[in-house]
């Protein structure tokens, strides 16, 4: 007999393998390797979380109890994958274009980003999924126990509860480790998906292995097996038509609506075309999974004692026959099915709970603004982690309280009926523009109530929630309200009965209320975008804002997405708009894009609320209302074209105005140029002339005086020379006549050189560096680069007005470029000056702190020659400059 210890070791080893696979996949994805991570096969395999432990073990039990009916559980998804392929594609397209994070987010987003709806869907999903998680824990526990019973040495040592507890704990740790690496739910969880794909292979292989063993090892071939099936009671089951159709439809509905299926199918989807492969590959997988169910059931009935649990035949048959290795494999298969379901369900639910319940509450408690309150990103991640632990713990609690047993085994289908309530709102939202929030909410509430009343509560048997007399005679004896025979529909199977009534009334209420009520404008816009997702990729303008808000938006986005990502997004948008620098104009397009990106992190409703706090409450403009009011297609099109034109003209006018402002400012500067250059040249010349005359005309100067005056003359001559050098340098750089001296070296060396040339770090002016993060090799004109750094450091030394000036220098690598930020803690540069500082002779304020105002202009020219850039970095506390330089010089690369 296989010892329990051996099993535990195999189990731990398997978990180690899973962790390493997940870790390796995350690493590979992080480094951009592993295109295979994004293959359609991995996608298909990840869909197999549909087959939980309940199907792995339970299908055989199902077959023993009710014959071929177990096929319905596989038939529903198969029909969906093949027949409703188009619908799935629409869901995936909507999910990607709107950056949907969960099924709750999809429904909330479609119905005007309503958080009420999201909260309701989330709660229903949690209620429906918790027992299902408990079921997985039970299956692992039971299978462990089977081994324990067979292990004579340590029969008494393992308690059910402790196994369930350790399994739950391990799963929570795994999910938190790999499921919350990145905040953005739209960034794929490569590690998790890869681990699940591996588990999918393991469970299929295990079941096939047991099947092959049963057919060829125990029965002696296909013919023999068929004979045994004929002889077994399985053959005699009557298939009830209504139950067959009902269960097929139910599993089809659940396949679309289960939060965990939505997670792998839509959220984790890499590429829409993967659905094409999955459309045939997933049904094939399901068929392979169901191939040996009946043989195992028939042979199990024949060979095993009549009291044994048919749900565990897959495990007990090999054990009985002394095939320990096979039994362990089978155990791993069941273990895989259970764990993968719990992991994905926990990720899906935690996203929903944290985005729709925890974050809104937190935002509300912290005064409702993302601007003032700390790092939203950490809060969201923490919320998600706590939610994962909470959800898995809830499953464990349910398992303990319900005590396992038969009641739990029936919960699979009950859960299915619960989540099937999302179907009308989901499908209506995708296909019917008339569907609205009130209707969706009313339908969901109706469906959920009927589900609770007619299926969920009675499933616990005689409890205070639903006493036996109510089940038998209806509340207060009202006969037609009997939970399992509503409106006198007797004789139906309870599952089919509840499914039929709940979904029917849900749909009815949804349709009627939607027809009777009016949607809000946001709902109309979202509705159009969802229903017509293939026609247009969403351009309904819902935002308008001014430039001053861009910086606020950037600050907020940095908090949520992290500084690097936010800055990349903003500068990318600015580049697209043809604006230099980091801050794009807050056009409706940009705001919508930003909202979508943010919603990937915190959910649609929250992202919408955050942006509207900054851009102003007007979430829907007058133009939008007019566009909505008249829905005739041509007028819509015409008005949107007009709108686009007006918008374009406004933008052009804005750009012209900006250009004009800049020109005016420049011409004022050009005028100032002459007087500046005159001043800069004449001042040292004055000293030189005055002292040389003194030395010429004055008799009896002491030696000290002579020395002093001649060194003043010398210093001033040097100053003049330096100024002329700068001017020449700039003119050479501007005319691109400069010869660059390409060298290789590390960034650290260049910075070291620059810091010491600029006077080093001392208590009066501290330079804060992280030398261990500066070990970047680069090939460039290092002297020129050092010149730029020296300029920035001396500028900070000269102009930083903090009491204890600190200059922070931070370097990082982004693709083939290095990004070096110089950020001081002074009061920074006002926004209207930020574009001018790189112009010649521009000094902020009328100070005479030294230079001629050529430093930054030279820096800009140098960086342009080095194929890099220097920009002002807004949104920091002090003055901040960002230098970007290629790691390898393009010209050298071209030559090589």
């Amino acid at each position, binding site marked *: 007999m296989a010892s329990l210890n051996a099993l535990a070791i195999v189990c731990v080893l398997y978990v180690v393998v899973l962790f390493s696979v997940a870790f390796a996949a995350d690493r590979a994805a992080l480094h951009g390797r592993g295109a295979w991570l994004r293959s359609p096969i991995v996608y298909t395999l990840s869909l197999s979380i549909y087959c939980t432990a309940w199907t792995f073990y339970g299908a055989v039990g199902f077959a023993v109890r009710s014959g071929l009916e177990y096929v319905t559980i596989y038939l529903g998804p198969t029909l969906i994958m093949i027949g409703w392929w188009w619908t799935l594609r629409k869901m995936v397209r909507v999910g990607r274009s709107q950056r949907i994070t969960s099924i709750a987010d999809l429904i909330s987003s479609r119905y005007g980003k309503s958080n009420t709806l999201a909260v309701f869907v989330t709660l229903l999903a949690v209620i429906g999924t918790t027992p299902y998680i408990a079921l997985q824990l039970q299956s692992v526990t039971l299978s462990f126990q089977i081994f324990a019973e067979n292990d004579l040495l340590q029969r008494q040592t393992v308690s059910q509860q402790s196994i369930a507890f350790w399994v739950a704990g391990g799963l929570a740790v795994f999910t938190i480790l790999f499921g919350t690496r990145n905040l953005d739910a739209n960034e794929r969880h490569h590690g998790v998906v890869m681990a699940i794909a591996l588990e999918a292979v393991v469970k299929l292989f295990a079941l096939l292995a047991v099947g092959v063993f049963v057919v060829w090892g125990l029965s002696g071939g296909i013919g023999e097996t068929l004979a045994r099936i004929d002889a077994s009671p399985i053959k005699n089951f009557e298939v009830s038509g209504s139950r067959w159709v009902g269960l097929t439809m139910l599993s089809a509905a659940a396949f679309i609506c289960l939060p965990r299926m939505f997670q792998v199918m839509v959220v984790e989807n890499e590429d829409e075309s993967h659905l094409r492969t999955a459309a045939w590959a997933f049904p094939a997988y399901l068929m392979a999974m169901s191939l040996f169910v009946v043989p195992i059931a028939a042979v199990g009935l024949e060979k095993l004692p009549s009291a044994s649990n048919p749900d565990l035949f897959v495990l007990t048959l090999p054990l009985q026959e002394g095939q320990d290795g096979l039994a362990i494999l089978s155990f791993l298969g069941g273990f895989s099915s259970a764990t993968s379901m719990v992991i994905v369900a926990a990720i899906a639910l935690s996203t929903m709970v944290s985005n729709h319940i925890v974050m809104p509450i937190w935002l509300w408690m912290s005064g409702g603004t993302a601007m003032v309150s700390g790092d939203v990103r950490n809060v969201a991640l923490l919320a998600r982690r706590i939610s994962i632990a909470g959800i898995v713990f809830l499953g464990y609690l349910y398992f303990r309280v319900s005590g396992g047993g038969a009641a739990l085994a029936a919960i699979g289908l009950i859960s299915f009926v619960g989540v099937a309530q999302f179907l009308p709102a989901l499908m209506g939202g995708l296909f019917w523009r008339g569907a609205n929030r009130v209707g969706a909410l009313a339908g969901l509430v109706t469906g959920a109530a009927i589900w609770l009343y007619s299926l969920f509560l009675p499933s616990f048997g005689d409890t205070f929630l639903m006493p036996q007399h109510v089940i038998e005679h209806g509340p207060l004896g009202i006969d037609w309200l009997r939970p399992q025979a509503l409106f006198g529909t007797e004789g139906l199977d309870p599952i089919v009965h509840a499914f039929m009534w709940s979904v029917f009334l849900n749909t009815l209420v949804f349709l009627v209320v939607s027809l009777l009520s009016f949607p809000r404008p946001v709902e109309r816009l979202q509705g159009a975008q969802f229903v017509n997702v293939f026609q247009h990729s969403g351009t309904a303008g819902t935002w308008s804002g001014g430039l001053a808000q861009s910086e606020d938006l950037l600050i907020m986005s940095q908090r949520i997405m992290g500084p690097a990502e936010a800055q990349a997004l903003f500068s990318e948008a600015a580049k697209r708009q043809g604006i230099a620098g980091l801050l794009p104009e807050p056009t409706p397009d940009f705001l919508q894009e930003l909202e979508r990106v943010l919603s990937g992190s915190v959910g649609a409703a929250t992202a919408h609320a955050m942006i509207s706090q900054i851009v102003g409450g007007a979430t829907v403009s007058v133009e939008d209302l007019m566009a909505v009011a008249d829905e005739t297609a041509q007028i819509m099109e015409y008005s949107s074209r007009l709108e686009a034109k007006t918008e374009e003209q406004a933008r052009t006018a804005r750009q012209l105005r900006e250009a004009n402002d800049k020109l005016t400012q420049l011409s004022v500067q050009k005028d100032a140029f002459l007087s500046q250059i005159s001043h800069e040249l004449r*001042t040292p010349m004055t000293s*030189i002339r005055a002292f040389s005359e003194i030395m010429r005309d004055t008799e009896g100067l002491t030696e000290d005086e002579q020395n002093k005056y001649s060194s*003043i003359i010398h210093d001033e001559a040097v100053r003049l020379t330096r100024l002329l050098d700068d001017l020449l340098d700039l003119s050479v750089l501007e005319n691109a006549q400069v010869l660059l001296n390409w060298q290789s070296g590390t960034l650290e060396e260049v910075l070291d050189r620059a810091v010491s040339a600029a006077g080093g770090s001392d208590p009066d002016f501290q330079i804060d560096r992280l030398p261990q993060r500066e070990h970047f090799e680069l090939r460039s004109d290092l002297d020129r680069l050092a010149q730029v750094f020296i300029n920035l450091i001396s500028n900070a030394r000269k102009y930083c007005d903090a009491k204890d000036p600190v200059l922070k220098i931070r370097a990082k690598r982004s693709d083939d470029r290095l990004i070096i930020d110089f950020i001081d803690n002074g009061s920074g540069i006002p926004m209207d000056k930020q574009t001018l500082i790189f112009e010649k002779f521009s000094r902020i304020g009328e100070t005479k702190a030294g230079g001629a105002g050529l430093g930054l202009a030279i820096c800009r020219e140098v960086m342009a020659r080095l194929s890099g850039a220097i920009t002002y970095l807004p949104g920091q506390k002090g003055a901040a400059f960002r230098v970007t330089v290629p790691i390898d010089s393009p010209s050298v690369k071209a030559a090589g």
Partner: protein
Amino acid sequence: MNKKVLLIEDEPNIIEAVSFILMRDGWEVKTHSNGHDAMDAVRRREADIVILDVMLPGRSGFDILKDIRSDPALGDTPVLMLTARGQDKDREMAERVGANRFMTKPFSNADVLDAVRALVAEHE
């Protein structure tokens, strides 16, 4: 008793040169090197003549001159303005606000000395 000159200028080397020339000629020289509180210095020093640079940190020499002219106690103090910008615009501006003499840097030492002597003599 020596006549007193107040030199308002921010370049240390120019201060040193002008002070040297004037002191050799027997003047008592007081200096001040920013625009913010230049008026306080003018009031406190009660100089016989003020030499005033145009570009000062904090406040322009033209503004300081306007204040001197509008102060009844100092109103007619002779003022010699110095500038390094040397544009006609500046000269006009200096005349408008009431400078007695206007010199462009770099100047010859002798010219400065002559101008200071002449202005004080005129005033008396």
